[in-house]
């Protein structure tokens, strides 16, 4: 790949910054190390992380949809 296409490629890739979100949230353990509030009898520590699996999936889907629109392999 020539330098030119690399540069325009990088400009198209800003949605990938969204990937920072799972890293920041997941690594901030004190944020979710608690029991309350419960959901359907499940303590916060567990339902929060489980729901964040879905959030992570949605973020990947968003980035993919955004990049796929361009129709080109990154």
């Amino acid at each position, binding site marked *: 790949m020539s330098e030119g296409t690399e540069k325009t490629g990088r400009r198209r890739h800003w949605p990938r910054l969204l990937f920072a979100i799972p890293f920041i949230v997941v690594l901030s353990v*004190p944020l979710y190390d608690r029991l309350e509030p419960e959901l359907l009898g499940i303590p916060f520590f567990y339902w929060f992380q*489980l729901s964040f699996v879905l959030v992570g999936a949605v973020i990947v*889907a968003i980035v993919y949809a955004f*990049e*796929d629109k361009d129709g080109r392999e*990154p």
Partner: protein
Amino acid sequence: MDITATLVFVGLFLFVTWVGFVAARWRKADLNMLHEWGLGGRRFGTVVTWFLLGGDLYTAYTFIAVPALVYGVGALGFFAIPYTILIYPILYLVFPKLWRIAHAKGHVTAADFVEDRFASKGLGLAIACTGLFATMPYIALQLVGMEVVIGALGFSTEGWLGHMPLIIAFLILAAFTYTSGLRAPALIAIVKDLLIFVTVIAAIVIIPAKLGGYGAIFAAVPPEKLILPKPEPGSLGQYSVYATLALGSALALFLYPHCMTGILSSSSGSVIRRNAGLLSAYSFVLGLIALLGYMAIAAGVGENPAYAFGFETYGPNFAVPALFLDSFSSWFVGVAFAAIAIGALVPAAIMSIACANLYTRSLYKAYLKPHCTDAEEARMAKIVSLVVKVGAVLFILVLPQEYAIQLQLLGGIWIIQLLPAILLGLYTKSFGAGAIMAGWAVGMTSGTWMAATQGFGSSIYPLYVFGFEIPAYAALYSVILNFAVAGLWTLVAPAKPQTQAAST
């Protein structure tokens, strides 16, 4: 001995055996070519890749060991969930590019890529050996997972007679891997996943209903186990342990040869990116499986005399089998146990193929027989995959189980040392083979040393920074050192510009 469960178990196992052999005819091609045998011809689309990678990532050991950890230790065992949240961005960002290069240049393994990129056979060999040594105990541990469910069906697993079911299972595995290569576990993974999903859905509906709802389940768990204890002053305590276990495991996962194989067998980079989103379904299921550990506590299987022998023999690994025996009717126990046992076969097959690919390319072809024909190459891989499996079985039969667990612990620390080679190799031209090799060597020794200070019983190293304690996953510390050394080396002795003629 549970007859019904055993019959269902054996029936499903025989079905899967048939699938393994028939797989040779699926997407028919010349299995005497290494990339056909070892990478399925690189033709697996989104759906098949999803099943294959799922089979890679979610092994029998995962299904037994994660709930066992939650059962025994509590909240810390849940690190598997943040770990699997992080793997998907990593998969998305890094691996499509690696796939593209591997596809263009005919690389079959990560070691191939490294050897070519850094023009160093020695570095390729180091990468290959790391992969081999990290994977072999992992194969052995799949057998442990299989043995636990065989034992739970009521068969004694002591002595050579007791190990017969395992030996038979592995003979079957060896046979269809030899004939069909990667196509076998890919096809079987479909069956395995259907069984796992059915089992898990049944488990999360039926068992809580029996136990009085999720509230009742969590109420049965001692409160100090339910969340991570707040750290003592002067330490990051369990917080840094949890976070670094998640991050370190996520960074390491796809460096494992069998995961690399799963990725390189895709038909395109888009398949990989799509799977980065779709595989999250497995993470969610893993979260539910982890909660089985708490369900086992709530169901009181630990105090139930019927399961006392199982817990004595297998320890907390018996939690999930005991829970299933306690909650499901016989025939479904057979289905659930078959799911776990088949969940051992699939990754064991892929792991042995991945090891075979590594040996064949980076040792056999690189050093022993550089001008081997395609057929010789594929044949060597088939033989090596057999040898690796035999080795794993012998390992489990002869050595105490603790050794396999300790080696697997070390394996996680070793495999992450491949990260600089892959990341730096993909994204920058500034590093030469010397820098990478130096970093690798320092990473391997420091990581192993850290584990040694804990008596190889734990991979958490309590680092003290100006009197402040940061206990964290040794793999992460050692790979940071790895990067640092590589960086320093490059500053002192910068890489020469790549010439066209690759040196050997």
